[in-house]
């Protein structure tokens, strides 16, 4: 597959299916493995890495793309494929890949179920921007006949919060759109904050839409719990020391990076350190921020 095809497949998947860029990346890579004509494992790896670079270069948030591709590559390297013919390898990898994908998609349901336990009758929930994980959790809770209220931030600059509100209305969940700057004002009446994540760092902190860190700080000050929904493929080995330590391709899309001076640009994401996070609700269980590193160590070492 060449560059143009990769990009086309990737965009198509994102537009037609409602999946996170990470999953779309995995699907694209799987497709590539299926149709590729390479003959050795090394070459396959190389092409996959290059494909990942192409995908990161597009104007989609790079955080989850990076982590999921990393994970898939690791997955492949862990498969015990020594001494097997390459065509056999390919078949095994494709099967494994499908299984992996299936588990990831199932994970969403698990997360929604765990998260819905935290939503009680009469809860007032604050969320930020549009997150599929949070949406599923709220829908699940609605399905359990719970009565609660959601506050969504507009979340400039792309106003994805408005999209979230539309979807909440469709699901019949009472919701209110609030200004990004009204977070401090509303926090004293909120019961807890629930956000998604684009990436989970090794420290246990998260990378998410810009504005998340502010909400987390406010919640901590007002003693409100801060819950994060994150699928396990979003775990990465990143360990940012601060906002400036985040990789550039996370913060800015590729077109922005090429054209303008970055200092004056608005970043897409920010990093929330682990001490502001109460719990991470993932498909491998409910974790405290210190548990994330444990999982990653088990995987990579």
């Amino acid at each position: 597959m060449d560059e143009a095809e990769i990009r086309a497949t990737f965009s198509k998947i994102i537009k037609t299916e409602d999946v996170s860029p990470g999953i779309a990346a995995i699907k694209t890579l799987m497709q590539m493995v299926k149709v590729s004509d390479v003959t050795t494992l090394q070459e396959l790896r190389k092409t996959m890495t290059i494909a990942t670079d192409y995908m990161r270069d597009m104007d989609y948030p790079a955080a989850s793309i990076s982590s999921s591709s990393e994970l898939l590559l690791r997955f492949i390297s862990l498969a015990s494929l020594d001494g097997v013919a390459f065509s056999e390898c390919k078949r095994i990898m494709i099967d494994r890949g499908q299984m992996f994908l299936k588990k990831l998609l199932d994970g969403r349901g698990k997360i929604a179920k765990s998260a819905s336990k935290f939503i009680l009758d009469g809860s007032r929930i604050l969320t930020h921007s549009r997150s599929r994980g949070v949406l599923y959790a709220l829908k699940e809770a609605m399905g359990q006949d719970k009565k609660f209220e959601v506050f969504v931030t507009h979340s400039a600059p792309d106003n994805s919060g408005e999209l979230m509100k539309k979807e909440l209305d469709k699901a019949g969940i009472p919701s209110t759109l609030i200004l990004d700057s009204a977070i401090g004002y509303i926090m004293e009446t909120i019961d807890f904050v629930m956000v998604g994540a684009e990436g989970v760092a090794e420290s246990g902190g998260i990378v998410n839409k810009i504005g998340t860190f502010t909400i987390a700080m406010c919640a901590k000050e007002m003693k409100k719990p801060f819950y994060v929904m994150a699928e396990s493929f979003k775990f990465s080995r990143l360990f940012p020391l601060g906002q400036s330590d985040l990789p550039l391709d996370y913060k800015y899309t590729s077109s922005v990076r090429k054209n303008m001076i970055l200092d004056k640009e608005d970043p897409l994401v920010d990093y929330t350190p682990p001490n502001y996070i109460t719990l991470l609700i993932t498909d491998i269980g409910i974790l405290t921020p210190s548990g994330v590193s444990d999982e990653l160590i088990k995987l990579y070492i």
Partner: protein
Amino acid sequence: MSEAVPIDFSYIIDEIRSGTLSQSNEVALKTEEFVERIIAEKDWKNAQELMNLIKAEIKLISEALPLHTISTNILRHVLNIIREEYDIGFKSHVEQSLHQMMTSDSDAMGDYSKMLDGLKTSIIDHLSEYKTELETSIDNIAAQATDHIYTNEIILTFGQSNTVEQFLKAASRTHSFQVIVAENAPSYNGHSMAVSLANHNIQTTVISDTAIFSVMSRVNKVIIGVHSVMANGALKTACGVHAVALAAKHYSVPVMVLTHLYKLSPTYVSSYSFDACSSPASVLPYSFAGDIVSRTNIINPMFDYVPPELVTLFITYQGGNAPSYIYRLLSELYHPDDHEL
């Protein structure tokens, strides 16, 4: 009564309900004996059937005693032991993690119905090790006392706990220190704790719960026992301990929690209240102006929630741990599939 441990847990449930069996260590030992009897005497052919038997008991207990987690935790741990022995027998390793998701042939996961010889004996062996662990748990915790308490310290404790008592008595053999006991109204079990400590020649002072903040500025350490520990390191304790922990945080006094592993529950608590209250008569006696009592709402909660950031250290028989490590202890004790039963 203790000679013939019944094969029906309902006897133990009755004892717990009536209050004759109240000490956590005794409950733990009785539960463990009960499990041994099930394994030895009941009819089961493979691991899956045995686990189903135990799961049925867990369901029974959690319905009969919703606030009582010691027995259900021990049974959960036994389920984990069964799975472990099964896996060792078949040399497979199933652990839910990122790693496992990547490496396993997933369809083989979770099937415990193959017959395995020697499963029964290996489980019983493992259980007898576990029993020794339960029996020596308090002593092992008490043995760490001299690491944490030094001479001329002032220690604050709240109400009554057998574990804390043994801990302080062990330390008093080599060091001399003072203990301040908060009386823990309305059960006032702090009084009997103070008497018990004083009989061991430990200099004790009893204060009312109102004075906790006042004396905290002079206290060196706070040592408390708990009812149970939540999965994120939060505590479910006697009512009033949250105030102690807050005061300790304000004066930067370390809070040390003595706990046994069977008190660790894999549940998360989503709200601050445990929805359990006991009789209001211990708060305001009926003899006080009956008409006032009938027009007032009297609150007497049983438990208190203490968030994990207020706890400095958990001391178990294995040693000291930070609250952020509790998730690790939990993953060693219970299998994730057994968290929700």
